[in-house]
């Protein structure tokens, strides 16, 4: 599969964006996150963003000339995406430094969270193309935002677990709501494009017939939701030992889903070809 660099870049960058927003919200709402914990989590976010940007260049035919992708901000969403994620990376580094030094970080956090959301949205807009009817709607943007919303909080929970800090139930309730919304959105999207007729229908059938369709459903949505439901049904809420599994499954599910996103889309045909 030739699209793995883009799959990795989009999923990792969206996860980092979601994690940044999560950390900022937790910091602002609880005011209980220790400097060491916040520094560790923000460093993790910065590193993942850096890795995602490095991976993205390997998708290009000319990786050493990647800087030129910033040339066409006016009309190219790809230029916008690279600019916004570049800005986001710089903000994650500043945010980490502020955590590290125990400085006030409300303003940079707010700017970083806003840029993170805009960057993910611009990633989605890249694929809104009339030449790809199944993408020519807000579907890609919703998919990408939901990836950020699902993986971001789970990444933060894993980073906190590494430092033996357990997050409250609300974060997992939020994650499970995002997973339910993600699954619903996927099924609605699938049924919509199948009913489009012509090329949209072909894309829909490609998705269902794709080898990772069921693994994506199971790893990305059904098993993680089962884990959260199982934990919720216990007498005492203790998800600590399952946090890593929950994150890994959701992450694998998102990777499979993204590879399916790129693999299955069908372009308009020219005289049937």
């Amino acid at each position, binding site marked *: 599969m030739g699209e793995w660099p883009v799959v990795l870049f989009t999923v990792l960058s969206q996860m980092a964006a979601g994690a940044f927003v999560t950390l900022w919200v937790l910091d602002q709402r609880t005011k209980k996150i220790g400097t060491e914990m916040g520094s560790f989590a923000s460093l993790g976010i910065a590193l993942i963003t850096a890795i995602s940007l490095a991976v993205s260049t390997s998708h290009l*035919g*000319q990786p050493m000339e*990647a800087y*030129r992708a*910033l*040339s066409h901000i006016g009309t190219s969403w790809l230029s916008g995406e690279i600019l916004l994620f570049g800005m986001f990376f710089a903000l994650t580094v500043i945010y980490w430094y502020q955590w590290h030094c125990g400085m006030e970080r409300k303003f940079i956090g707010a700017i970083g969270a806003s840029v993170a959301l805009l960057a993910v949205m611009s990633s989605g807009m890249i694929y809104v193309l009339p030449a790809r009817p199944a993408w020519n709607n807000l579907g890609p943007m919703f998919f990408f935002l939901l990836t950020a919303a699902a993986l971001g909080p789970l990444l933060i929970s894993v980073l906190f677990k590494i430092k033996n800090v357990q997050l409250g139930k609300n974060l997992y309730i939020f994650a499970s709501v995002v997973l339910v919304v993600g699954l619903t959105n996927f099924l609605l999207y699938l049924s919509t494009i199948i009913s489009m007729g012509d090329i949209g229908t072909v894309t829909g059938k490609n998705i269902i017939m794709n080898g990772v369709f069921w693994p994506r459903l199971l790893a990305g949505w059904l098993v993680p939701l089962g884990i959260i439901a199982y934990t919720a049904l216990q007498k005492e809420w203790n998800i600590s030992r399952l946090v890593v599994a929950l994150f890994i499954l959701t992450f694998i599910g998102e990777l499979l889903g993204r590879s399916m996103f790129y693999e299955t889309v069908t372009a308009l*045909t*020219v005289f049937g070809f």
Partner: protein
Amino acid sequence: MKKAFVVKSDRCVGCHACEMACKNEYQLEATIRWRKVYQLPENEFGVPSRHFASLACNHCENPACLAACPAKAYTKREDGIVIHHTERCIGCKMCMMACPYKVPVFNEKIKKVEKCHMCADKQDRGEKPACVAGCPMEALEIVDLDDTNLANMRSFLPGFPDIAITKPTTRFITPNLGIQVRGNNNG
């Protein structure tokens, strides 16, 4: 001035000479064709028939490739020709995804995209594009859309992607419908 290809499907016999003239002129890689001869869908003209259309870049009025390219590797000349500047291309393939007509192609050897430029340099010297000059049936022509009687031409043929997306400048002359003699018809 708005230069455009006229594809005369009433004259095209599907010999692929235009493709070969283009490949030969620019010494294209074996798997790359800037111009492609398509067999038109057989059942689109009321009676089963076999016709062809030779397509290269449509030098659109609103080129999706130009808008999507993050590296400004595309420009549109005043005469309407859309040029891809290989030296600026970073090989991201965005133009390939955005073009509804599958025109830009990725050259695996140089890891960059390339496409038809309507032989702009040759035209600047007053010569015909290689495909136009190479067609034995005179089924291809260059016209100025601002100064041409378009009455007998169409903006699309059945099976051509929606022209509203990018407003391609290519014009078509529809095939002459008649009894088609098949190669495998021995009766």
